[in-house]
């Protein structure tokens, strides 16, 4: 199933920094991952881990001061997205790689109708008449199961609920049949019953259009229900990557273990906690970045940064202890 021809996107050793008043902050540190056609990859982590920065870097949406590219490649097909001109990137965005964000209300202009904005986007990518665009937009809204699409096109953004707006954004993102969809916490701001609807739509559309999705979230429950494969990030680094069943059944990295155990109701009895807090990006700890909070850290962990190595079938982890266990 995973062969070189099936890989849609490959991130290699991506490192991104930010210039702040207090000095340079290392936000992404040599992150490598790959996405296959038709798979939903979950990108999980807590605040400050760099998952949003990673998603935005793929589409080159990070403003260049203060963001700084420190190294790496992002291969889409055979092109390195980091080396493309801004003009080529603009042609790519919305066409071959689309993105949806957390707050649909701020992605839409409040003074224009939904129809106006959708037609504008559609006609930028595919020349057609206004009537054709209207019909096309109606059909798109129908695929995301919005009732009465013609009516919706005449509404203004503030007249629609968060869930409906997010469906509009999904419809827009998928209008040109992209190969890859980046979803940056699209359901975090929605109620749980609405979230369920959106996740169901995304899952169906991904299967129907053989769409690859990178789904950024902090919610392990969503990951378990939606994704095929999961990548866990901590403090700017990728610490574990596995198929979803393997990740939940046998999490190899202590951070992943702690994260799953922190979910109320996951383990019976006392709620497990991870002591301490996420390190500052300005002064990351030496060696393994998780060692100050890790119950299993040793002196070796404080000195040497672990590499992301395969320890089981399609299961990679960056942890010295896990490596030792695997090689035994």
């Amino acid at each position: 199933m995973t062969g070189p021809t099936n890989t849609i996107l490959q991130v290699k050793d991506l490192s991104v920094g930010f210039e702040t008043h207090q000095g340079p902050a290392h936000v992404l540190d040599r992150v490598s991952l790959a996405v296959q056609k038709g798979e939903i990859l979950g990108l999980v982590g807590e605040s400050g881990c760099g998952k949003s920065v990673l998603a935005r870097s793929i589409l080159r949406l990070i403003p260049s001061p203060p963001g700084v590219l420190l190294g790496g490649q992002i291969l889409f097909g055979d092109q390195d997205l980091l080396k493309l001109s801004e003009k080529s990137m603009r042609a790519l965005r919305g066409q071959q790689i689309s993105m949806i964000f957390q707050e649909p209300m701020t992605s839409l202009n409040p003074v224009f109708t939904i129809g106006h904005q959708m037609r504008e986007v559609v006609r930028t990518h595919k020349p057609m008449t206004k009537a054709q665009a209207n019909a096309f937009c109606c059909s798109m809204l129908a695929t995301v199961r919005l009732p009465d699409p013609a009516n919706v096109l005449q509404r203004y953004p503030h007249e629609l609920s968060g869930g409906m707006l997010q469906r509009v954004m999904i419809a827009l993102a998928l209008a040109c049949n992209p190969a890859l969809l980046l979803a940056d916490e699209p359901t975090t701001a929605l109620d749980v019953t609405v979230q369920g609807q959106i996740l169901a739509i995304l899952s169906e559309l991904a299967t129907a259009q053989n769409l690859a999705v990178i789904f950024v979230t902090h919610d392990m429950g969503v990951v378990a229900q939606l994704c095929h494969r999961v990548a866990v990030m901590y403090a700017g680094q990728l610490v574990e990557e596995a198929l979803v069943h393997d990740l939940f059944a046998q999490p190899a990295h202590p951070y992943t273990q702690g994260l799953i155990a922190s979910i109320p109701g996951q383990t019976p009895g006392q709620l497990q906690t991870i002591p301490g807090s996420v390190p500052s990006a300005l002064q990351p700890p030496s060696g393994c970045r998780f060692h100050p909070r890790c119950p299993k850290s040793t002196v070796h962990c404080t000195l040497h940064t672990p590499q992301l190595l395969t320890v089981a079938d399609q299961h990679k982890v960056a942890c010295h202890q896990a490596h030792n266990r695997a090689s035994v």
Partner: protein
Amino acid sequence: MTAPLLTLDKVCKRFLVRKNFFGSGRRWLTAVDQVSLVVHQGETLGLVGESGCGKSTVGNLIVRLLAPDSGEIIFDGRNISTLSGQALRAARAKMQIVFQDPYSSLDPRMSVGAIVALPLRVAGLYQGTLLRERVISALAEVGLGEDSLERYPHEFSGGQRQRIALARALAVQPAFVVLDEPTSALDVSVQAQILQLMAELQARHGLAYLFISHNLNVVRHVSQRTAVMYLGAVVETGSTEDLFTSPAHPYTQALLASVPVADPRQRQNLARLKGDVPSPLDLPPGCGFHPRCPLAFDLCTKEAPQWVRIAPGHEVACHLHQ
């Protein structure tokens, strides 16, 4: 059975909303509709619901940031629904609140020590070194050291700020604390720390909590009893175990089914409920849930359902059970 610490009896609250710029077309927004709740000493009552259900408004009514339009709020034997001024201050002394957003619930211009000391100063309970010691011990109880006294909120992380907010609430030694989504803005690992801290503080001081949240996993973990709200009304109450294992109201059932379970072997159908939460400006007639209810029938569109007890301590407002 001792008298409950807090009783809400058919509390209502409406807000006037101006439809357009010139003030014509004024409409009433029913935020809280005939809500009745009971909280006993030392227990945690969970209040769940989605956005617009009125749970935060209930929290604000209890601490009297708002006054109810009708109904009664009885705290520690006293009816606080219409009090004001000095009487309210005295009656409210044993009540505190912790808010959701750790970034805006602490005054950025005040030092942490001043923030925690403020309720003590207002109450006039301590002065001078005694005050300082009380502040230090409150901060120590939440795991922050003496060196945080002179620091400012922006130097702390979200989880630490919620600890400061807890210290502020506990400094005056209340009997009851309203927790309005206290961990919703925090990462899951930090949330676990804060929940554990709250449990410890509750055990140590015999506190009663009203835990308001939209996160069902968290509510299940922290509360002994739970109430579910929809569009300003309570639709079901019961012990947490009863409610979560055998939910009686169709909304509770749908809500529970929509929560993504962190176990990929249990793949769920997450889209149980169609449509969106309706606006509280346009309350549907009869039962507020009927437009989205998969089990609605004719009576549901005409009459609001009455409360029915289906098991000891488990009550529901639904025509299906009458």
